């Protein structure tokens, strides 16, 4: 029998309503998983065991009394520690002090999750203020991968991804400026969605790049991610970039066939670089073949100015990140980790004209990508060039060459990563599926169809699943 904390949200929600399990039992088992594995994996920056149990007891009472808040009712969730919560200060996994982060209130997106019945289990680890690199001297920035603890879990939403895999919660909030939801989700073998820019409120979330930042869900399956996004999305007048568009039903296309759907495949920018793992390339070709088997019409496309747009995103993060953190950089330089402060200092190495040129390039690429979406419904490519990197000897330069996520931050389009197989040494690979603005239902429909056909998303590391399933099992 699968441990209840390793269920999908959909299955747990059904079990709650069938009275096969209570929210208190789900939360208790999630706490037990944290007791077992958090010292090694570094999922949490702060745990809220007592308040979570209290909230679970209230959720059970409400359900008993017929007050059902929906599919997240009584479900354990994690919150990335760059997002304000009422339980305690936000750290950004940093030693830097910023009075704005000390405030104990729910960010609007957390309030929405809580209002939908989610049980906040704690704050999750990340790369310092969502940038930087894993640093051995700062363990909370170096979360280990549940599939192989010598490997990094990815970032910056490190603990949000590894905590889902290890059953410390069933879904988590992440943020994504250049891939910080999709990279850890891909490295950890689960599902992570960067929504359309403006879809989810960013108020009370520590900014990194204001023209790129998004908040989104990480969970086991496409259907779980859809449920979470439904609870998280919506207009926020306090966020100047918040969309007022009517929200779609993010689960609305799940289960529909993808017969005839036009799927563009970008091999040129993703399969031929020097760092591309041959096994990953094979897995990607199998994934494309599976989509074709499911009836999708496959065509070759090429994302416009892929390398330049990746660079434009990095330059934008340097400049916009420095703009936000400037006071703290001047006054608390030594409190920032060396890679973080150098990244932000780099914002002074480009001119104002350089910054504007990066934005001009982004506009051109956005327009050309919109034209691509007149010809295809979704675009697929690998999420990374290889599986999770080793923590020993970690090199920032390498990270920049193996991540394939920045492009979709540049133009604000939704993109999801879903597991697409494993390396011979048991590490997951990720398939990225992107669509036009507010096409999350279609993107998730393709991810769901692929997941139903392959089952990769349900694989669990053997030691976490009590030996029931392993990465090597067929």
């Amino acid at each position: 029998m699968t441990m209840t904390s390793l269920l999908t949200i959909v299955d747990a929600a059904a079990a709650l309503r069938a009275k096969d399990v209570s929210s208190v039992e789900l939360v208790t088992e999630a706490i037990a998983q944290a007791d077992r594995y958090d010292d090694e994996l570094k999922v949490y920056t702060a745990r809220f065991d007592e308040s979570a149990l209290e909230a679970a007891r209230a959720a059970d009472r409400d359900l008993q009394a017929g007050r059902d808040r929906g599919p997240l009712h009584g479900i354990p969730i994690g919150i990335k520690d760059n997002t304000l919560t009422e339980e305690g200060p936000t750290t950004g996994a940093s030693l830097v002090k910023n009075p704005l982060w000390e405030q104990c209130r729910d960010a609007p997106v957390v309030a929405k999750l809580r209002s939908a019945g989610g049980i906040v289990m704690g704050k999750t680890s990340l790369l310092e203020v969502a940038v930087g690199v894993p640093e051995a001297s700062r363990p909370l920035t170096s979360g280990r991968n549940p599939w192989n603890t010598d490997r990094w879990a990815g970032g910056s939403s490190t603990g949000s991804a590894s905590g889902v895999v290890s059953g410390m919660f069933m879904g988590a909030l992440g943020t994504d400026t250049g891939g910080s939801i999709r990279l850890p989700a891909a490295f950890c073998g689960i599902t992570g969605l960067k929504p359309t820019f403006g879809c989810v409120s960013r108020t009370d979330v520590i900014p990194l790049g204001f023209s790129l930042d998004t908040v989104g869900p990480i969970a086991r399956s496409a259907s779980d991610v859809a449920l979470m996004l439904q609870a998280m999305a919506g207009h926020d007048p306090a966020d100047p970039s918040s969309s007022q568009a009517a929200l779609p039903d993010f689960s609305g296309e799940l289960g529909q066939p993808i017969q005839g759907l036009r799927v563009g495949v970008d091999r040129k920018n993703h399969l031929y670089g020097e760092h591309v793992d041959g096994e990953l390339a094979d897995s990607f070709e199998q994934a494309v073949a599976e989509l074709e088997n499911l009836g999708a019409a496959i065509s070759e496309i090429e994302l416009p100015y892929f390398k330049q747009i990746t660079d434009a995103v990095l330059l934008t993060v340097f400049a916009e990140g420095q703009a936000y953190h400037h006071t703290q950089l001047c006054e608390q330089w030594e409190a920032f980790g060396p890679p973080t402060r150098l990244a932000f200092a780099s914002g002074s190495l480009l001119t104002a004209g350089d910054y504007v040129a990066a934005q001009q390039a982004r506009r051109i690429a956005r327009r050309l990508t919109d034209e691509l979406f007149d010809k295809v419904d979704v675009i697929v490519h690998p999420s990374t060039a290889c599986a999770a990197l080793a923590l020993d000897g970690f090199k920032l330069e390498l990270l920049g060459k193996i991540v394939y996520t920045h492009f979709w931050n540049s133009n604000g389009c939704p993109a999801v990563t879903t597991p697409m197989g494993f390396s011979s040494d048991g590490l997951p690979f990720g398939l990225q599926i992107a669509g036009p603005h507010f096409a999350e239902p279609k993107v998730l429909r393709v991810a769901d169809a692929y997941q139903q056909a392959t089952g990769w998303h349900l694989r669990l590391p053997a030691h976490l699943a009590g030996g029931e399933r392993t990465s090597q099992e067929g």
Partner: protein
Amino acid sequence: MPTDNEKVVEALMSTAGLPVSQAEIAQLGELRTGIVAMVAGIREIPGVTSEWPGLVLEPDPARDGTS
């Protein structure tokens, strides 16, 4: 002796008010070389200088109903 590139970096950091160390100036010098190359690549995109330089993801009423 600092290189010309490092002297530029030191001046930029001083203007920005960032208290970088000499070792970090050397590291930033290397980063600046990379950034210059990135910007050069971006400026090679046809039409980039004549593109409207507003925010890329500014609200777009036609697309998403924002105003």
